[in-house]
């Protein structure tokens, strides 16, 4: 690839942003840093689901399952053997996992790899289903993963979960993994491979006639999506420092689905924007759950109120901007140029 002006600009912006994050602790509080990290992790999750649903058109609701696999595998890799021995109080941890101890980046990649492997196993039967049936089957798969985690106590510590996962997911490493995901997916999606995936989404029969082995590419896209979901899950685990099976229920899938749909199905930059805006919004809306004093009347805090407001915001998006923030378009330097060019006139 030649280094043209736009690539140069992108690299410059990425580097500048990285530098800013190095200095972030000087101007951001702990809470803000926590949120920024969450944005990065959510962006990875949104990007991975967008590959499966937005670009290839497979309505998969199994994302929480892949995230759980990534989180658990990396947690098992990253905890020291002593920690594990202390934590597994119901049943002692069994052999290969008890001695497993790897560096952070290996554990993240392992989380992704195991998630991709599980995706491969379920893809072979499940991807023969179309549309809604695929959604149901993958939703079932995610629940199976959760139930297995609850019951496989010698490996997963059952419903007690895993606590005290070392917080290796610093701001910079979250940023790095997000960049890694973004660059890999962008290179795939903006090559002819991306055209093939979109053709499968829009018109499967046409794709078959064009000599494309549709099933093979669907499996590939599904596994790649699961791989990055596993990476996101691994980061989520170290970010929160504690994981338990209840975290990975279907609500997590719907959260990720929300990022993707709000950002725009089939737009990578849309997923980034969707993840950032919704994560911030969800935190910001916490304010309305607190007791409010309007001067003449004191309102008690209502837990769950933010989800009500949030649903209204989503309804607004669906009513007035059905294709999401970006639609299938991408935020490029060219489109930014025309946007600001128009602004000047």
């Amino acid at each position, binding site marked *: 690839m030649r280094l043209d002006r736009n690539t140069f600009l992108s690299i410059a912006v990425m580097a500048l942003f990285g530098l800013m994050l190095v200095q972030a602790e000087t101007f951001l509080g702990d809470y803000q840093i926590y949120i920024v990290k969450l944005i990065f992790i959510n962006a990875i999750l949104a990007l991975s689901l967008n590959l499966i649903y937005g670009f290839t058109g497979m309505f998969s609701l199994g994302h929480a399952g892949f995230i759980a696999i990534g989180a658990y595998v990396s947690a098992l890799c990253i905890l020291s053997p002593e920690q594990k021995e202390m934590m597994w109080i119901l049943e002692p941890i069994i052999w290969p996992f008890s001695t497993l101890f790897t560096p952070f980046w290996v554990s993240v990649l392992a989380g992704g790899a195991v998630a991709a492997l599980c995706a491969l196993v379920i893809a072979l039967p499940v991807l023969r289903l179309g549309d809604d049936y695929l959604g149901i089957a993958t939703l079932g798969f995610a629940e199976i993963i959760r139930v297995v985690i609850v019951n496989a106590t010698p490996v997963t510590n059952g419903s007690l979960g895993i606590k005290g996962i070392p917080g290796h997911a610093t701001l910079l490493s979250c940023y790095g993994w997000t960049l890694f995901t973004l660059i890999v997916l962008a290179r795939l999606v903006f090559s*002819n491979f991306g055209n093939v995936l979109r053709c499968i989404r*829009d018109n499967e*029969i046409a794709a078959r*006639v*064009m000599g494309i082995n549709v099933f093979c590419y669907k499996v590939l896209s599904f596994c790649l999506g699961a791989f990055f979901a596993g990476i996101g899950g691994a980061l989520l685990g170290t970010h929160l420092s504690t994981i338990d099976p209840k975290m990975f229920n279907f609500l997590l899938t719907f959260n990720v689905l929300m990022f993707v749909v709000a950002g725009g199905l089939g737009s990578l930059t849309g997923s980034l924007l969707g993840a950032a805006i919704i994560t911030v919004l969800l935190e910001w809306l916490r304010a309305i759950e607190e007791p409010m004093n309007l001067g003449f009347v004191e309102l008690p805090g209502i837990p769950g109120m933010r989800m009500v407001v949030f649903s209204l915001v989503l309804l607004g998006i669906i009513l007035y901007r059905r294709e999401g923030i970006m639609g299938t378009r991408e935020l490029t330097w060219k489109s930014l140029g025309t946007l600001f060019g128009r602004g000047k006139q």
Partner: protein
Amino acid sequence: MSDGILPAEAESADALLLASDVTMRFGGVTAVSRLNLTLSKGSIAGIIGPNGAGKTTAFNVLSGFYTPQEGSVVFDGVNIRGKSPADICRLGMARTFQNIRLSGQMTVLENIMVGCHVRRRCPWWMAPLGFPAFYREEEEIRTKGQRLAERVHLAENLDDQAGSLPYGAQRRLEIARALATEPKLLLLDEPAAGMNPQESLELMHFIGHIRDEFDLTILLIEHDMKVVMGVCQYIWVMEYGALIAQGEPDDIRRNPDVIRAYLGEEASPGSVL
């Protein structure tokens, strides 16, 4: 029938496509019954017949969407009965559809580039790793797509969404995408459907030109008699799933069975055809 020697082999040494006794049933309905076709290299041939005669089913059998209950299809020396549409495309057969099948949200160029994919040498995993060979090939595919778009007069619409093009342009785009797979045989399912007389006339010339330029053999289904008679060197006529006549355009025009099939019993020969 087995994969072995086929009956009509002696007379068809230069045959590109050879269908023998192909029968396709859906439940109790026989959509295609004992169809025999021999298509020689470099020719333009047509299948005509009234609505529901089984023409599109015959196309679907040839391109691998259906596996016929009986008979065999040999394409370029390979028995393709039971092969998938993707494999058949790889062997060098491309087709278009009666109801246009494009990716409406993708641009004209992207649609054509999808067609180029089947001849691609570099595998997908080279893309994220940044292999120079992958990007060179990517550039080749882009240039090839642009050239094909120019060939079907869509050079100015490269970045337009395929779904926003007028009907005739969408048909040409579908042909360009089929050509991108570098076929030896091109199946066109009603290429002139929905075109005005001027457009059909242009299409006739166009079909002749691409045959010469890309060294193709073309088989088409068509209702527009002007197009069929003007462009085809050989015609098969189907009715109720069976062949009722075959021959050169002039013979078909005078064939009483064909006239009966199209116009009913009382019509006088040559009145419309």
